[in-house]
């Protein structure tokens, strides 16, 4: 058994873009104003910055629990390629199977509810029938019976879900990253990090430990309740719309960072935003952590004047440690120079939405 996608770009009125995140890099946003710009003020420092993950403005990435956008099919094709090249990108320790079923249920129910035109889930007791029209998948299976799916439940649903995910077991007063998939990650290794606890996997992050950010975040998360998910933003920079910036393949994509020139910067340099959301799972009591990646080129960001001004100020004033950790210290001077041309010094309004 396997999971073969049946996709034609003209299906669904051409909604799902036929695009690439590698080699030809044809990825782009049809509407840059839909991009979740992460800065609500003109400077940036780490904070826990959690808020309830409740449905938000129609037409934005916050409209539904899980945002299925024009990049869905292309991202799933890219994920399948990464997993074919390196199966270690998806791992689940043996005790996490139940949490895998929990997250499969969470995603299938939410997508069938919010996008009935694309997904459907029908249940007859534990006999479930799942239809994923964009990917051309139809599957009857028995809930909680692994033998009835072509992959273990976590991998099965993750091959149909945007974002990198981890499943965190709650024991001994901390969270343990005992399952995970990463094919669109900002430079962390599932293979290395699986089995680590909350403080261990955050170890390489500078400045935040000293500020107590992780102690507070852990306390907060241990109290997370089923049915009350939370979200926060994180961000970094990526040269080319490259979803998979894994440490494993760093020798392949690292040289791209040296390809920036003043002429190509606007098209090549992308702001990479992670919309992170966390869900307590009902049977396993594990926490599912979704790291959803959005990419937007500088050329597209500066079409929104408020974002252009603000991005310039944030990048210019970021502490060196953070620019280093986020991996763009070498290109920061060029980025600041380029962005300065789009910042007339006018004050910006609070919050991240465009002004008009």
């Amino acid at each position, binding site marked *: 058994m396997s999971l073969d996608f049946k996709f034609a770009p003209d299906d669904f009125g051409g909604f799902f873009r036929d695009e690439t995140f590698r080699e030809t890099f044809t990825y782009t946003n049809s509407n840059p104003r839909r991009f979740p710009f992460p800065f609500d003020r003109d400077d940036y420092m780490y904070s826990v910055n959690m808020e309830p993950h409740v449905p938000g403005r129609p037409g934005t990435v916050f409209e539904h629990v899980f945002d299925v956008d024009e990049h869905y099919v292309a991202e799933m094709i890219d994920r399948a390629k990464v997993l074919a090249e390196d199966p*270690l990108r998806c791992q689940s320790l043996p005790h996490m199977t139940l949490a895998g079923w929990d997250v499969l249920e969470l995603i299938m129910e939410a997508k069938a509810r919010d996008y009935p035109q694309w997904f459907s889930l029908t249940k007859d007791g534990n006999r479930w029938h799942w239809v994923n029209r964009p990917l051309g998948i139809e599957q009857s299976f028995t809930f909680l019976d692994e033998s009835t799916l072509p992959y273990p439940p976590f991998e099965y649903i993750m091959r149909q879900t945007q974002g990198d995910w981890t499943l965190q077991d709650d024991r*001994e007063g901390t969270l343990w990253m005992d399952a995970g998939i990463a094919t669109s990650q900002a*430079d962390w*290794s599932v*293979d*290395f*990090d*699986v*089995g*680590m606890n909350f*403080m*261990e*996997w*955050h*170890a*390489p992050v500078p400045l935040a*430990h000293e500020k107590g950010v*992780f102690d507070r975040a852990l306390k907060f998360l241990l109290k997370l309740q089923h049915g009350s998910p939370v979200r926060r933003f994180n961000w970094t920079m990526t040269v080319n719309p490259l979803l998979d910036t894994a*440490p*494993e*393949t*760093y*020798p392949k994509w*690292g*040289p791209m*960072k*040296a390809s920036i020139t003043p002429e190509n910067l606007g098209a090549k340099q992308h702001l990479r935003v992670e919309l992170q959301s966390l869900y307590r799972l009902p049977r396993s009591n594990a926490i599912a952590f979704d790291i959803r990646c959005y990419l937007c080129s500088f050329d597209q960001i500066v079409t929104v004047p408020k974002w252009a001004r603000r991005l310039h100020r944030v990048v210019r004033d970021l502490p060196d440690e953070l620019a*280093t*950790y986020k*991996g763009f*210290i*070498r290109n920061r001077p060029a980025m600041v120079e380029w962005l300065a041309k789009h910042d007339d010094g006018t004050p910006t309004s609070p919050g991240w939405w465009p002004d008009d």
Partner: protein
Amino acid sequence: MKVELTPIDAPSIKSRPVYAPLEPRPGKLHVIVADDAGADAVNDMLTKATNRSEILAGAHVMYCPGPTGTDGTAKLEALGAAQFFRAPTIPALLPRLVRVLLDAHMGTQFYLAGSESLIGQAEREIMNTGFPFASIQKEQRGSTLRRVQCVHCKGITENVATDPFRCSHCGLSLFVRDHYSRRMAAFQGVNIDAEDPGLVPESVVRFK
């Protein structure tokens, strides 16, 4: 990812295992695994113990010399533990530990002492059998040579002394990131010249 060499005496990073002096604890079975100067840590723990003879009567001691040749065999053999085993190397020691774990009951106390490589690999075997984290004590003594996993080819290089170093499997020049995985019992090695191939800084000795 950018190269940042953390001085060896810098405050410990958060994924680094926390080490504290071994403390004697009550228990029926005391599994003591050590290498290198870990023999002295075991001795110090027993010196503190008010139940020394009780611990030794239920102790299974496994020991091997350290990566730089330090050999505390005689000290540990002389303790008079219920069982003593000397292995030539860590890989030769681990199968015996795995066998002992098969019969160990909950409430067993584990004492690991010596190099990070020994501590990490022994801890991994113990945790694989489901013993709680809290039953394992660890004290680092002696060599600070590191066991490093190449994040690119996944091969593990033992006894890394310099930073950067060449991966013994794929040959890439790696810097040792201060990021430790208990599951791998290894630190993470990341290609140092990925962005500028060929620009490899001179190696410095950071681990001894």
